């Protein structure tokens, strides 16, 4: 019987994600206490960077999956 490793236990995965969500909350709450130095107009919007991170990530994945993938993805031994 192999030794159980840290992420073999589902409760540890849950704990990890809980910590992660907590960090998300802190990063949003911190905006109330930090004066944001803005170079562009859009940076004045509250939570701009959080929203941009979320949207850009999803857009990147969807674009790669639905546009680039069908264009360039071939079988593994394509060049052989």
């Amino acid at each position, binding site marked *: 019987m*192999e030794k159980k*490793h840290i*992420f073999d236990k589902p409760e540890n995965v849950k704990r990890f*994600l809980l910590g*992660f969500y907590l*960090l*998300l909350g802190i*990063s*949003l709450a*911190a*905006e109330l206490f*930090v*004066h*944001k*130095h803005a*170079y*562009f107009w859009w*940076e004045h919007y509250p*939570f*701009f*960077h*959080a*929203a*941009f*991170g*979320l*949207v*850009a*990530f*999803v857009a*990147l*994945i*969807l*674009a*790669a*999956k639905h546009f*680039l*993938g069908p*264009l*360039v*993805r*071939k*079988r*593994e*031994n*394509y*060049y052989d």
Partner: protein
Amino acid sequence: MINAFSPALLFLLGALFIPLFKGRLRNAYLLLLPLAGFALLLSMQEGAQGVLSFLEYQLVLVKVDRLSRFFGYIYLLITAIALVYAFHVKESSHHMASLFYAGSALGVVFAGDFLTLFIFWETMALSAAFLVWSGKTKNSAAAGIRYLLVHILGGLFLLMGIILHVHETGSLAFGYLGLNGLSSWLILIGFGVNCAFPGLHAWLPDAYPETSPAGGVFMWTFTTKTAVYVLARAFPGEHLLVWIGVTMTVFPIFFAVLENNLRRVLSYSLINQLGYMVTGIGIGTQLSLNGTVAHVFCHILYKALLVMSMGAVIYRTGKTNATDLGGLYKSMPLTTLFCIIGAASISAFPLFSGFVSKSMVVEAAALGGMTIVSLMLLFASVGVLEHAGIKVPFHAFFSHDAGIRTKEAPLHMLVAMGAAAVLSVLIGVYPAPLYRLLPYPVEFAPYTPSHVLTTMQLLLFGAFAYVLLIRSGIFPAEVRATNLDTDWFYRKGTAVFLQVLNGPAAQMGEKIRRTVFERIPSALSWFGKNPLAVLKMASDRALLAFSGPEQRNILIARLEKEKNIYPGDIIKHWPVGTSVLWATLLLLAYLLLQY
């Protein structure tokens, strides 16, 4: 001549003696070379040394200033780390190629004239090809040839540019060029091939993943950063480079999403990181150039760290595809930790090295009021997080357990990775010593509350998107596949070219050969046997076409007879009158031609 002795020459000469040593002694000797190089670099004075006259030109074999010294430091540092990582490699040839390669890169960095630069530029490409072949697979053999061909082509562009430039200016000196005229464009293309400019980049994800684990650490470092160095010298503030740079930050991240081979992911990641450096060169302010140079330093360390961690995985498991890996944190916990540190550094999390260098370029773009550029850089940051920050460590070490149970990486690899990891964190926490080495005075504070907050929001919510996409099943599963890139044009192009050559072109050639060398000569010789009879046959045939049905049979019979007796009795058909007629006609033609 002794004052031209640079770390470059030390490496090139030192490499020759590697086969004399074995085992631990050889490892000690290997490590001695970058250490001696470091001492040498510290003792070198600023300015031009090793000045020679060559024909009517002046060669400057070694030129030291703040910029070349800076590149010298990081190149020697990474050589030491990479050599420790390569201790397990038994073949002397591998180490010799590595040191020739690193030495050539140092040679370019310290070159004060175009000829010296070009020679080291070419030896760099040649020794790098040996490192591609060090992968020792069928693929690496082919990729090495392609690597060499592409770089020889790039080198030829550079050479054409240099020759034109020398012709125009009468000087071999290497320094600021700016884009003006054909020679500078050719030189830019030559540099651009090595810097993986968009469209000229495909050699990189083609060749780098094929290298041996130890060879990869060298490869991911030298060629591209040396190109950044020469660009920073020759084309600072060239606005075109801003657009080339941001394109480089953005387009590879889409490829990296699709890529299954994690070392190919790191290849696209390299192009993305070069993009930040090229953008900084293009902006051309003191802040942006400082940013480029600082990013070279940080990037070399953390990218080497990521490459080393993937190399350790290959060394232990022989695998590098995301579909084959997973759960390795159980067997290789330290490698996992180092990979995560590399991932955090490249993603530019606060307290890691990428944060203190990348932000200089980003801020320089913002201060320049470059709206679209700033948004593209921000988007690219999210892309870095996706492929290098999450995908590489997650798929290799966590994800679904692939059931591989192996040993931790060998000690010397752990030491090399540990050194790069410690430096990446140290620079992130305390960037002042790095900033002091930069070419211009630094008045930049990376750790403002605003900057830390916005970066954390961007990265954390990017990661949150990853969690959401995985949980909802939208995130594309890793699949075994070949993803095409612009190398398709020359890989398929040459195949099609060969097919055309072997098929239609060969048939056409055969036809031409038969016509020219067989049909036409034999027809002429047939005609020469009795030209008059041939003319008679031709006239009979013409008559046949215009004659009525009653004459046809006679004519056909006559033609048949003429054919059968051809060439017949030649003399009989040559009455004197005809000859005189011909001679008169010929003389007449001659007369007409004369007037």
